[in-house]
């Protein structure tokens, strides 16, 4: 099917629109009077409807249509926004989401949505108890469509205006067939034949389609632009048999504003997409000034695999660039050198662009949380004020994909067990509304994500007791631990059993999973908490999994890369400064005893260089422990692309991977964690 090639785009865009609807609904909840927000929601819903109809997902399209009707009623101030309505709309968004997910998973997007549809319908009909002041109008049925009021849209009225400026006549022609007419459609056809000979039919009510299907009583009305006189037309039509009467009169186009309103009510009742399409256009005109504030985001979607291929190709280029540099330096040809230098600069820029392409704002993950928090706080009968800070912070796509679930877990935890119920809060002298903050920011080579609440905090004693009882730590160990070390115990795997939930302000459910996920991403998580004042869960993540900053060092003649994230600093120490403890060489580093690790021994580097009186050391850490790696020289800091050593050599001691340097050679990346016991 040709549809398949659009399916991915359809799913992505549907998700985006649903997200936009969700976001705007949350804003609307806070500002129920703001019609512009409703317009935004309407626009997303409308696009979604159109898309799903085009793709042939009828259920999706139908439900969206129902939702759109409600939104339209809100927009036209027939229904005012209140919690009941929002709940129903939220529910329908949930259903829509489920449908889209079903489609994404290869389903048909079918779903039983009777209940929601029913609720939406009753809102639309003003049946649901709302504070609505303006009664909902009766839907226009085929019968009164043919009544005196002709509803035309803006486009039609524009055409009418134009034609009268050109000296044409705008006639409103009402044709009534005889009650006993047998072939109504045939008569209509004949009438239209005549009308089209006289001029141009620009509008008909009921629509031509309905007329052809005989979906009308006995009369219909058309708008005709013609050079003929009204009488002439009447006479001509009267020649058709079985016509009861014909009346043609000059049609006065109503003022623009009125047309707009009428057309809106009309097209809201139309299912035909073509109709509603016009309405969307019209809407854009209506809210033209608001449209401008939405800056068009010009993006294309790229499969991440393609970026990987691009990256690999680029590395090839970098390698050849390195060779070219070498050659040009040897030849000392100035023009060649100049060109190579330029190429180096340009490819450097290109490199940073390619690397940046993989970066996406953390917003992609964050934007689903306000909705989740809303729902959760309702379920838990808590009042929560969620603020999101730094959603624009960028992270590598691979990290983004993984970080969502741990965050959901932590937010749930904070909501469920961190923040107290309103009455408890009040009794403690706090505001009944709990504060929850989700914050992301860059710091150095890392991104930090913090989840802070102003809830009850963690009770150190209880955690300690539980940890000792569960054999996670000994009593002595617990005594010597800092507060945050104790708090981090709740993320130990031995801690997450169900009965702890109530004991330790509930934290500890599956937090070990959270910790594992984050650590597998090369990040770490720490907890800070003040009893009675709240807790902060802080997650540190590498900017990306594929590019890391390293310090290149030389061990004898071999080059190794030490990840910058584990380096504290570099130093040069004199041989005399080295002390011995337990037969081990150590140095005094800022008052701490740090063991020396001779890389050339551990890595069994064939020795070639003579030792001098100084040692160059890289001081690395693993948690609170440190080690000083002895190298021969520092080459410098560099961003490198992380490559695996492959299955064949996996698990080599103290080596976490490899990278390709500018000269095309492979340098190994040291796993400093393995070097510290």
């Amino acid at each position, binding site marked *: 099917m040709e549809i398949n090639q659009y399916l991915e785009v359809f799913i992505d865009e549907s998700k985006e629109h649903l997200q936009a609807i969700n976001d705007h609904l949350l804003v609307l909840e806070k500002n129920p009077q703001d019609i512009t927000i409703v317009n935004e929601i309407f626009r997303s819903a409308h696009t979604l409807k159109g898309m799903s109809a085009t793709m042939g997902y009828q259920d999706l399209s139908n439900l969206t249509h129902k939702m759109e009707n409600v939104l339209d009623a809100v927009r036209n101030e027939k229904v005012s926004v209140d919690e009941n309505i929002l709940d129903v709309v939220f529910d329908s968004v949930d259903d829509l989401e489920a449908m889209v997910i079903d489609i994404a998973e290869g389903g048909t997007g079918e779903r039983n949505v009777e209940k929601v549809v029913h609720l939406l319908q009753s809102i639309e009909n003003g049946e649901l108890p709302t504070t609505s002041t303006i009664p909902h109008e009766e839907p226009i049925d085929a019968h009164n469509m043919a009544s005196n009021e002709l509803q035309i849209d803006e486009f039609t009225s524009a055409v009418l205006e134009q034609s009268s400026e050109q000296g044409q006549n705008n006639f409103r022609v009402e044709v009534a067939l005889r009650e006993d007419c047998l072939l109504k459609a045939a008569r209509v056809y004949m009438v239209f034949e005549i009308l089209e000979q006289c001029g141009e039919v620009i509008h008909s009510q009921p629509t031509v389609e309905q007329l052809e299907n005989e979906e009308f009583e006995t009369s219909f009305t058309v708008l005709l632009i013609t050079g003929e006189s009204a009488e002439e037309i009447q006479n001509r039509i009267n020649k058709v048999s079985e016509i009861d009467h014909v009346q043609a009169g000059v049609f006065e186009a109503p003022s623009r504003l009125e047309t707009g309103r009428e057309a809106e009510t009309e097209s809201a009742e139309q299912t035909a997409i073509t109709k509603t399409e016009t309405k969307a256009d019209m809407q854009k005109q209506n809210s033209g000034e608001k449209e401008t504030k939405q800056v068009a985001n010009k993006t294309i979607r790229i499969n991440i695999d393609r970026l990987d291929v691009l990256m*690999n*190709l680029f*590395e*090839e280029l970098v*390698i050849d660039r390195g060779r070219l540099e070498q050659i040009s330096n040897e030849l000392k040809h100035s023009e060649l050198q100049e060109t190579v230098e330029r190429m180096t600069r340009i490819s450097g820029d290109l490199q940073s662009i390619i690397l940046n392409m993989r970066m996406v704002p953390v917003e992609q993950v964050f934007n689903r949380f306000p909705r989740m928090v809303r729902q959760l706080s309702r379920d838990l009968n808590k009042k929560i004020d969620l603020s999101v800070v730094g959603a624009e912070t960028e992270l590598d796509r691979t990290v983004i994909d993984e970080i969502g679930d741990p965050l959901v877990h932590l937010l749930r935890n904070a909501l469920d067990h961190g923040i107290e119920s309103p009455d408890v809060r009040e009794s403690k002298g706090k505001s009944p509304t709990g504060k929850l903050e989700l914050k992301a920011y860059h710091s150095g080579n890392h991104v930090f994500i913090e989840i802070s609440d102003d809830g009850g905090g963690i009770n150190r004693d209880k955690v300690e007791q539980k940890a000792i009882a569960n054999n996670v730590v000994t009593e002595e160990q617990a005594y010597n631990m800092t507060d945050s070390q104790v708090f981090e115990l709740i993320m130990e795997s031995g801690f997450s059993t169900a009965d702890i939930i109530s004991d330790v302000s509930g934290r500890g459910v599956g937090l070990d999973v959270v910790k594992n996920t984050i650590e597998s991403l090369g990040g770490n998580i720490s907890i800070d908490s003040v009893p009675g004042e709240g807790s902060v869960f802080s997650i540190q993540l590498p900017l990306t999994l594929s590019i890391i900053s390293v310090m290149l060092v030389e061990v004898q003649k*071999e080059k190794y890369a030490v990840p910058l994230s584990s380096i504290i600093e570099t130093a040069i120490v004199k041989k005399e400064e080295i002390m011995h403890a337990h037969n081990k060489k150590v140095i005094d580093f800022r008052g701490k005893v740090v*063991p020396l*690790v001779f890389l050339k*021994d*551990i*890595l*069994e*580097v064939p020795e070639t260089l003579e030792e001098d009186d100084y040692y160059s050391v890289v001081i690395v850490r693993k948690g609170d422990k440190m*080690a000083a790696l002895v190298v021969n020289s520092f080459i410098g800091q560099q961003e490198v692309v992380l*490559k*695996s*050593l*492959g*299955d*064949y*050599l996996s*698990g*080599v*001691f*103290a*080596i976490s991977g*490899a990278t*390709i340097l500018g000269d*095309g*050679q*492979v*340098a*190994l990346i040291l796993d400093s964690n393995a*070097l*510290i*016991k």
Partner: protein
Amino acid sequence: MSEQDKQMLKVIVFQIKDEEYTIPVEQVGSIERIMPITRVPGTKPFVKGVLNLRGVVTPIIDLRERFEIESTDNTEQTRIITVTIQGLNVGLIVDAANDVLDLDESTIEPPPEVIGTVEAEYIQGVAKLDQRLLILLNLEKVLSKEDVHLLNKVHV
């Protein structure tokens, strides 16, 4: 007609010391000239290290060392044959890559008890072609993962 029924095996022929070895052409990715190799510590001597093969870090095995044949310096003829076995991408250092041949499977014989200095377990069979004796290698055995790492790891 019987000519066509013969099972033909297309192989790459390469040389280590004085012997000629073959591997099926489907298993071969490419044949490269020798390039700078980065040593990987903590591996057996026959693992020469890794090299960058068009952006892919590829482990390199010295077949001489693997077969415990005395090592010589690389020459102009030295080649790296990259092979793919069970998803593993590995480069093999050989003294020279000579030929591509069609072997008639009926000429392949099971390995004799002892052939030169190479342990018999790597050998799938031998084929006689005119005056040449070709040794068919069992790459799965040559590349067995188990004995890649050195057992006595250094700890701090």
